[in-house]
């Protein structure tokens, strides 16, 4: 398809190949993601969700297969080069920001994602004024704390900042890796609302891994369920809207163990 933003073609990734612990994390995995798709991804532990995101982000190199972003073959690109196309929010709030650096410095680094960094001054007056405006959207009072180190923020504040950072330089693909799982339920809901409005507003092509089935059904236009490195269920549009947690459990309860069920 021509308007595909992201295409995974027959990607295989095997860990510990040739040993007793051999594991096919991704098994001949294919997925076509259209522009502005917001896909939620569920599956039990070890289904290959994180490996999938790692493969897309270039953190791990697939053993076989092809990865295409916006018509360009990027299969062998290392993670720091993939940053030109992809932005990622991790599960732990501490992973997406540099804790010893200030809020404005973190924003500046994010603004330059995938761009050349030279010996020009980083946080210029212009940038600072703009950051102040942008931070007001979060309504967390961070606009008055630009020079504070990010380590002083709470988990929810830090994750909201990370989300905001991804939109400073709009990525072709946004990867969300259980990014609300480490937050308390109230904060998680707030961060999820923020995510949803940012994705819609910017029409971001998004892949969101989650353990929460309600979340997976509520958000996005498409849902993919993984099992043993393969797509087990792929629904979108009306079909997805009609789907309920009870139905999924009735049909796939056997394969969906552990916390996916617990948090349903």
């Amino acid at each position, binding site marked *: 398809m021509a308007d595909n933003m992201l295409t995974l073609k027959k990607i295989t990734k095997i860990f510990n190949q040739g040993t007793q612990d051999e594991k096919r994390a991704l098994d001949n995995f294919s997925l076509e993601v259209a522009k502005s798709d917001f896909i939620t991804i569920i599956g039990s532990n070890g289904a290959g969700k994180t490996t999938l995101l790692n493969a897309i982000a270039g953190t791990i190199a697939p053993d076989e297969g092809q990865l295409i972003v916006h018509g360009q073959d990027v299969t062998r690109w290392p993670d720091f080069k993939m940053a030109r196309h992809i*932005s990622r929010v991790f599960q732990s709030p501490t*992973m997406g*920001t540099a804790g*010893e650096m200030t809020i404005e410095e973190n924003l500046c*680094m994010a603004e330059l994602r995938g761009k050349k960094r030279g010996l020009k001054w980083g946080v210029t007056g212009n940038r600072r004024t703009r950051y102040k405006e942008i931070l007001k959207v979060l309504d967390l009072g961070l606009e008055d704390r630009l020079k504070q*180190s990010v380590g002083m923020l709470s988990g929810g504040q830090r994750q909201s900042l990370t989300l905001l950072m991804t939109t400073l330089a709009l990525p072709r693909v946004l990867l969300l890796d259980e990014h609300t799982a480490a937050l308390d339920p109230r904060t998680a809901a707030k961060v999820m609302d923020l995510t949803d409005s940012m994705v819609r507003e910017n029409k971001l092509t998004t892949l969101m891994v989650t353990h929460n089935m309600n979340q997976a059904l509520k958000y996005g236009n498409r849902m993919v369920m993984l099992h043993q490195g393969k797509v087990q269920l792929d629904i979108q549009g009306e079909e997805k809207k009609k789907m309920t947690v009870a139905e999924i459990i009735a049909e796939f309860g056997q394969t969906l163990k552990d916390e996916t069920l617990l948090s349903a």
Partner: protein
Amino acid sequence: MLYIIPISLEQGLAYALVALGIALTFRILAFPDLTVDGSFPLGGAVAARLIFDGVDPVTSTLIAMSAGFIAGCLTGIFATKFKINSLLAGILMMTILYSVNLRIMGRANIPLLNRSTLFTTIETWDISRDIPVIIFFLVVAALCKILIDVFLHTEYGLALRATGDNEQMIRSLGVNTDTATIFGLGLSNTMVALAGALIAQDQGFSDVGMGIGMIVAGLASIIIGEALFKPTTVVRLTFAAVIGSVVYRFIIALGMRLGLAPTDLKMATGLMVVIALAIPAIRGKREKKLKLRGV
């Protein structure tokens, strides 16, 4: 008693360049770089050899700095590209440099008597050498401090700091952290080699053993500076490194005045660092015990 002040000031400011270099690797990059014990005498060896052979002192000093840059980059390449443990990478480079330094000098010691050095002009002045030399080192240390401060606030400088703070994050933002590490180590060892080149010229000779214990002394300086100023920003960290270096040299001079033998200095410095590092650990243990008891 008072005479130890000018000598500690002069030495403290001269060795402040080493402390700045070590602050850049240990604190900013979070890379414990042990190249320093080799790149310091490397700077001295290159500068002394060139000056001895008649090259003008400014050019000699600049070439010595480049040698330090290359040495640091090589340690960085060992660690990032060859995946050698960072401590081992530094030790390997330090060991290699020992032979390299002897090769460069052709012998263990080069005297610079009757050769024109950066300090020759000062020595022709009709005043005591102390004060102009102190001012010279003060200007050099201040210049290096400010240059580092500015660099660490540029776009690439921010990336370099993030490499030490959250490597995964800055990689996901498009920075090749291997390159950043290599460059940071190069920059650090440039300053260390500059210190070696200047100190060799100041003391009038270069010796292959002049780098022994340099890391520990630099670390002691930084720890002292941090204890005094509790720096939270880059600007304050580099300031703490410079002042810490001066205070450290003052403590050493005081110790010698009080009867410490020069041969005991490395032990004294080493113990100083051990104690400084042990305090939080011991304190933590005690707090844990108290917590368990419900205090």
